[in-house]
Structure formats: C-alpha cells, structure tokens
C-alpha cells in the first residue's frame, strides 16, 4: 500500500508503516485528493476521527485524519492521513465531501486548535460554550487555569 501512495503522491512523506497502521503526510493543498485516493483507491471507507497536534516549536499544527475500513480483509487496518499547517494561518480543505462522518470532528479541531476547514458546510463550535473568548484551548500556549 505504501508503494501505491508513494507512486500517486510523490511529494508525500510516509511517516510509518507498522502492524495494521500506516501514516503518511501530504501538503495541505493535496489533502482532499489524498482523501479521495484513500477512500476510493485504497478502500478506507469508515471514518474514525480527526486529531490535531500543536507544535509551537516548529510553528506548525498537524492535522491527522484516522480512517478505518469495513471491507473484508481490511477491517484491521487504519490509515492516518496527515498534513501540517502554519500556526498563524492554519487552514486546510474540509474532507466532509470525502467522508460525511468528518463533519463534527472537523468542528472540534476547529475550536480546539483554531484550524479553519475551508469548504466545511457548517463550521462552528461544538463543545465549547458560545461565549468562549479565549484562544483555542488545545494550543500549547493556552494554560489550563490553576496549572
């Protein structure tokens, strides 16, 4: 599978290939194309979640999509599709059109890390209160009160 990815996305970076897990990183502009490839060519049809990681030392936020599959023979596999966006202008294409299940997860990553998902049908907060006026709380420069 990693050969297929490398052939299709030569500028991508395979982060790791281990038992039932494969992670590869693409540039933000290629994210949707990579998503469609993972769904249609590789067979990852069962969306799991979006995770975001703040790396202030590199001035980057990593957005990782985890997708599984219910296809026979692939049920144990999870692919991690990642991209890195700059911290001061974090924007990435929404993958709601690729996986309908991504809608609420992208909202959470938006409010917790401040990543804008362009093309998202309904990008608003989901867990934080409506009157939240602080920085996205999962960023490393947000200090949990009392700590």
């Amino acid at each position: 599978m990693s050969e297929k990815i490398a052939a299709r996305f030569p500028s991508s970076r395979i982060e790791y290939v281990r038992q039932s897990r494969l992670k590869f990183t693409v540039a933000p502009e290629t994210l949707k194309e990579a998503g469609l490839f993972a769904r249609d060519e590789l067979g990852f049809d069962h969306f799991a979640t979006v995770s975001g990681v703040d790396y202030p030392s590199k001035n980057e936020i990593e957005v990782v999509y985890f997708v599984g599959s219910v296809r026979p023979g692939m049920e144990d596999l999870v692919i991690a599709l990642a991209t890195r966006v700059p911290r001061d202008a974090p924007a990435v294409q929404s993958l709601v059109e690729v996986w309908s299940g991504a809608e609420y997860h992208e909202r959470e990553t938006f409010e917790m890390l401040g990543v804008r998902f362009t093309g998202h049908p309904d990008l608003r907060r989901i867990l934080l209160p409506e009157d939240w006026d602080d920085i996205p709380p999962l960023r490393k420069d947000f200090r949990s009160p009392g700590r």
Partner: protein
Amino acid sequence: MAVSLGPQHPGSGHFRIRLWLDGDFVVRADPDPGYVHRGEEKMAEYRNYIQNIPHLERPAILDSTGMLFPYVEAVDQLMSTKVPPRAAYLRVIMAELNRIISHMYFLGIYGLFGGHTTMIEWANGDRDLFIDLAERIGGARVTFAYLVPGGVRNDMPQGLEGRAFKTFDWFEKRIAEYEKVWLYNPVFEQRTRGVGVLSREDAIRFGATGTVLRASGVKHDIRRAEPYSAYSDFEFEVPVSSAGDSWARGYVAIEEMKQSLRILRQAFEKIPSGPVRVKLGPQPRVPAGEAYFRTEGAHGERAYHIVSDGSPRPYRLKMEDPCFRNMILIRELLRGAHVADVPLVYWGLNYWPVSADR
C-alpha cells in the same frame, strides 16, 4: 416551531438537541453537546501516565474499563511492555463485565423512555449483580482504576469463579425474560420497528460504530476485526441485524450480552496463572513515539491517539469517542421523525453525553 430538548439530564448526562417542529414532525434536529465538556484531553497533558488513569476512566463512567482499555494498551505498545497473560485475561474479564453493566443501563433507560417501567427496574436490579462481581475484583462499584499500564492493579480474589458462574447462570434466564417482557413486547415493537432506520450505506458513510453499526447490518467489531489483549483466545459471535431500526439496536445489545457471557465463562475457565502486572514505577517514562490503539467498548470503537515526547507526560492525548462519532446520526435520524419517536431514536443510539464531550 423551535424547541429545545435539554439541557436537562435525559437519563445520561446533560445534552441538548435543538428541534424544529412542524406539527408532529421534526423538520430539523441539531445536536448541541458540550455541557459536560471538562477538557479531558488538555488535562491529560498535565498529568503523567499513571495520574491520567482516574480521570480518563470517567467520561463513559458506566463503561470505565472500556475507557481505559485502549489507553493502557496504547501505553503498553509505546513502552513495548509485555503484559502477562493472566493480566490480559483479567482485563478482558473486567471489560466484559463492564460491557454487560453498560448495556444493562442502556436497556433499562431504553425501557424507561418507552414507558416500560418493569424493564428499567429489572435491568437496574440485575445489573447490580455484575457491579458486585466487578467490585470484588476492582474494589469500587463504578470507577475501578483497575487497568494500568503493564497489567492490572491487583489479582481477583480466590474462589470468585463460584459466585461468577452462579451469576452468569441466573442472568441467562433473566435475558430470556427481558426478551419476553420487553424486546418482543407488542407495544415496544410497534414503537421501535421501522423507526429511526439507518441504512447500511449511511452507517458506513457516517462512520457509525458499536451496536448502531451492527444493527445496520455491518458485522464489524474490533474484538474480531483487530483482536487485542486476550480476545483471540475466545470463541464468540458478533451479532448483527439487517433491520437498522431502533428495535434492532435493542436486539443487538441483548445478543451482545449473551456473547459477553460466553467470553466470561471461557475466561474464568481458562485463565492462566502468573503475575498480573509489570511494575513500572510511579512516573514511567514513555519513549518518544506515536500510537493509535483501538478497542471495542460498550458504546463502540474507542481509540487513543497518543503522541509522546519521551517525558513522563503525554505531549498529546486524543480520545476518539464512539458517542461523538454517532452524534451526527441524531441529526440524520430525527429528521422526519414523530415527536414521540424522539426519545427512543435518541436513546437507541447509545449516546452518552459525558463520553462524547470528554
């Protein structure tokens, strides 16, 4: 007319659904979570891997073992710990006891929301027998902090099998009675068959998980798809239904409890002897790396994405939650529903607000 369903505690935790109604029908539904969001993932960054155990097990408090299972397995994987076989069996035993405990609460409230007061009283009563077994192993009734990186906190008491098998035999008879009085009750069937239908394609498309996914005909259970811990040692079925309606979600939960009993019996019979824990010390250093570990909790697939920078505290801990995943189905399935169907469709999705909110 716009109506707010919530944010009172509708049997499970504070949650609100905004409903737009036209007469007796729901035109649009918008789930509004966040009332019990406590910042679990942020808290995890301030505590070491051992200190994280008590708070991480609390979101889906009724399946606290399910909350911890993928966490400890992810940490074990990052540390390359070899979990002793007896510890793996004890993890499975606790997990399956917790699955029954969680399903019983689910079925009880399912009864209540349909106006079936017998089901809630029976389910709560019989559930206590399993809480009793779990208490004898874990030391508490609900949150055991029993699963730890490296194994489990302590061995189970000697002679527990006797009480356990008595409970399982009794419970098997009780399940038959639930089916008679509730699941195949004509009133309940009328209220749930054909109600809130989720097609197989939509279940996959939206990333549905757990009993909801299997009630829509997708035979996918992480214990089988990607066996972890000691699960490959046990024979059990993965129940599915092709109906995809609210009734099927109750049916699958009951069938899963029968399978949990099978696993428990085998586990108690075959459990190997030996140590139950690899001692790690109070502040274990987890080597730098990344892990994504998933298990099948009572509410569905639960996973932890842990990024470690080599320090005693996680750099990032992301909790993938089955209830959060299924939440979008609240919006999808309530569209076009009768107002009276709302509680049953909502509850049938086994949505636990505290779990989804973290």
